[in-house]
């Protein structure tokens, strides 16, 4: 039964992530246009807003989800070391990897917003994208490699 903690952790984090977007939008005065589930490119929940000309507000809206996940991750790591539950840890890591991926995530949407070229714009295969991919690779290695955080906590 223990492995079930992994998808369960991810589901809870996903709920908190999306709630964070809604809450941030309400607090910043951004208009939420839709909350639902998108099927493409992969099924995932989403919160859509009307993009505001006040750039920092929209950027906070984009990054609040991953910031919440990171905060919970740091809190649990510092206080309980994930209750010695490796599947809770792995759930957190999988969620962090998904939320920061360079192909389709809040980061890519934020980049589209900053570029000012609309939702179809992409910086894939540009130098900036390769930097993102490299940092993402280091994050995955740091989280999952037995030499780093995973090894320190569970081996």
């Amino acid at each position: 039964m223990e492995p079930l903690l992994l998808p369960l952790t991810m589901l809870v984090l996903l709920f908190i992530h999306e709630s964070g977007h809604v809450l941030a939008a309400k607090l910043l005065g951004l208009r939420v246009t839709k909350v639902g589930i998108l099927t493409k490119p992969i099924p995932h929940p989403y919160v859509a807003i009307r993009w505001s000309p006040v750039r920092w507000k929209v950027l906070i809206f984009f990054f609040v989800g991953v910031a919440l996940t990171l905060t919970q991750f740091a809190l649990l790591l510092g206080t309980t070391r994930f209750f010695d539950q490796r599947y809770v840890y792995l759930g957190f890591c999988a969620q962090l990897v998904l939320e920061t991926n360079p192909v389709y995530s809040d980061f890519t949407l934020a980049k589209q917003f900053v570029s000012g070229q609309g939702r179809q714009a992409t910086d894939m295969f540009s130098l900036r994208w390769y930097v993102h991919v490299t940092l993402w690779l280091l994050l995955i290695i740091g989280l999952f490699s037995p030499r780093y955080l995973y090894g320190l906590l569970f081996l």
Partner: protein
Amino acid sequence: MIRTLRLSIYYQLLMALRMKQAMFFTLAFPLFLFVLFGNLWGQGDPDHLLFTLTGILGMNVATEGIFAIGPAIKDYNSSGILRYFKKLPFNILTHFFGLISSQLLLMLLSTALLLVTGALLFGIRLTPALLGQVLAGLTAGLTVFGFIGLSVAFLNVKKGGGVAQRGSLASAVYYVLVFLSDAFYPLGDINPVLGQVLHFSPMNPVLQLLRGEPVAWLTLVAWTALALGFFLFQFRRFTSAR
């Protein structure tokens, strides 16, 4: 003649280098996988590192064979560009030689990048034996997967089938070849039933060459002959779309 050939290779290489997506999958993606897998599972285990490295090289050569050469030649033929090329004042074979050589150069570059990364990051020793195995594996792989790629590209599932349809068939063949093999995990040890299937996989003899293991030559030769025969059969009955 040499100058024409050199220019043909140069321009084909230039065209390939300008395709950012193709460059990612040829050069960066194998490196990404190697650094990731090497760090997650290979630390302190040189055998596993070599297993991962050769698995990625096998995947790489399958990618080149199935996606790079076959579909390009098929599209030249189906779009009628071949007939246009025939009117140009140089031998059409020079053009194809340039195309294949440029892809070979890119694959060698990707292989060199992987080997150097393995040496610098994980301390893999680049012995002459290893380099010989890699060269033998790449040569055999490019031959068998090149012909499989050509066969798949010329296989018109449906008359007038679009690029996406042909692409999806090639992808399906590619994934079956890569994942029903010992490329990334010893499949035969994990599942004995699937282990039986591996005896018929064209990927496994290529991996055996790369890993310096006893090679299932019969499987390798049979697949090469079968794919070549099927390609020739398809090519003869194929008609240009224009």
